[in-house]
């Protein structure tokens, strides 16, 4: 079996009375796009901060490509690039210089870092701002700079802590496209987010975390199928001839000439429902569906919405 890119086992951490992490286990394969999904304060940032050496763990192990993140910190940190949620501020140096410094901390000399620095500035639309100070950049540019900084030593693993928090829709989509591009080129990506859409669109696997515990882990579609429920509304001409027994296997409610179904797998179940209704001689006028999402999964697991 291939060594996981990131392997977290039994991780615990407390801040005074508050149990921030309570036995977190996560394994991320090389090349995987993985999402850590949870509300604010769930333990997402604490988990990645322990992984990257910013926070001391209490118990448990954190490994990167099989090496311990404390004993072999030089190896593990050189494999990781991190784009933090909080913007850093620097008053003294232009952003290009800051990227060279960042590469230097990872043992890369300026002349060796130059091609990647140029390419990142170009790709992230920061070329014309290379001589600007951070304070002169817009919020969106600062977010892109965070990502450039994380990638300047060409890490195998990219960790993004809420990368699209507070950015506009256009930039969010642009960043998603860029992350998908990086993933297609083999980067392992760990993303923390509380945006359901982001996790569903980008991640191959997600872990749902709340109150410092991983509640469920798997591919978004599988989780949705297992724990989510889609809403299907069938509007009929009338309900004359409907035998309750025909629909006894379904969860549904009636509202005049409408039937509201809650089903786990609409792709499989909807044709069956249509068949039952047609066989009963009912005329279907309209079908409306609300697709199940990770939001429903989260609701099912925690009893609350992700942004509550």
């Amino acid at each position, binding site marked *: 079996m291939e060594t996981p890119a990131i392997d977290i086992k039994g991780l615990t951490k407390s801040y005074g009375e508050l149990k921030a992490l309570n036995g977190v286990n996560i394994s991320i394969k090389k090349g995987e796009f993985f999402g850590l999904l949870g509300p604010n304060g769930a333990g997402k940032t604490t988990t990645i901060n322990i992984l*990257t050496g*910013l926070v*001391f763990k209490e118990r448990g192990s954190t490994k990167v490509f099989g090496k311990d993140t404390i004993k072999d910190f030089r190896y593990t940190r050189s494999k990781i690039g991190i784009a933090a949620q909080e913007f850093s*501020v620097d008053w003294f140096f232009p952003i290009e210089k800051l990227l*060279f410094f960042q590469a230097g*901390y*990872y*043992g890369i000399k300026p002349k060796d870092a130059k091609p990647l620095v140029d390419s990142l500035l170009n790709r992230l639309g920061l070329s014309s701002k290379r001589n600007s100070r951070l304070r002169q950049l817009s919020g969106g540019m600062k977010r892109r700079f965070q990502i450039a900084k994380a990638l300047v030593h060409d890490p195998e693993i990219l960790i993004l802590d809420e990368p699209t928090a507070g950015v506009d829709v256009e930039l969010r989509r642009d960043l998603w496209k860029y992350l998908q591009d990086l993933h297609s080129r083999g980067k392992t990506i760990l993303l923390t987010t509380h945006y359901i859409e982001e996790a569903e669109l980008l991640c191959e696997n997600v872990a749902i975390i709340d109150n410092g515990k991983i509640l469920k882990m798997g591919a978004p579609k599988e989780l949705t199928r297992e724990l989510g429920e889609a809403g299907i509304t069938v509007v009929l001409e009338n309900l004359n001839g409907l035998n309750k027994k025909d629909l006894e296997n379904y969860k549904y409610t009636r509202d005049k000439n409408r039937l509201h179904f809650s089903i786990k797998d609409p792709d499989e179940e909807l044709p069956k429902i249509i068949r039952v209704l047609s066989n009963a001689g009912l005329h279907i006028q309209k079908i409306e569906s609300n697709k199940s999402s990770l939001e429903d999964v989260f609701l099912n697991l925690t009893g609350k919405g992700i942004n509550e």
Partner: protein
Amino acid sequence: MNWVGLNTLIKREVGRFFAVYRQTVLPGLITTALYIAIFGFTLEQRISEIQGVPYTMFILPGLIMMNTLTNATSNTASSMLQMKLLQQLPDLLTAPLSGLEIALAYIIGGAVRGMVNGILVLLLGVFLIGMPVNNLFGTLMFIFLVSWAFSSMGLLLGQLAESWDQLAMMQNFFLTPLSFLGGIFYSIKMLPNWAQTLSYINPIYYMINGIRYTVLGVSDSEVEISILMAIVLTIGFTLASILLMQSGKKIKN
């Protein structure tokens, strides 16, 4: 050892204070020139000589030392606190840099600023009032040791401080009084006995008299004790700041 990383962080630290030289280099020179002008034209009329040295010249080694140690201290202290408060520190703490490398880079950055300021004030004394330098090697060695020691101390303060207010308190209530009471402007022999005794527990007193000896050949303290004190302070503060950085206290959760 991550040599490229260490070198990068040193360049960053040195580049940082040179980028704002109006705040970090020029003030010490201007203040010293003012001391020379004011004391030279006023007090020197009344205090002609101390230990056979004209008053303005007598105070200059002390001014070199004060500039050296305050600049070295404030460089590391303010840089570290600034990085903490502006969220820059995670860039270093998540990089493959050890606590030893981070501490050394900061100390070297602060020591360079201390030395630049100390040497510039020394040159000002030489060119402005024709101050002789009896032992150039010894003078430079003192400037180096004091820069290094107080740069390390500044790093300790910067790492432990949580606000600018705390840092200012340490500098205003601790460092500046000790510098002034270390005998910059007077010989401790001019003080009453109890005050002389108090001066002996002030480490800055030994630094000022050490450099005064290497520059002018006069001193209140034995030069050997001054050298020993400078070495002890340098080793002590260096070890303490490296250990504190490795512990991650106040910079990691």
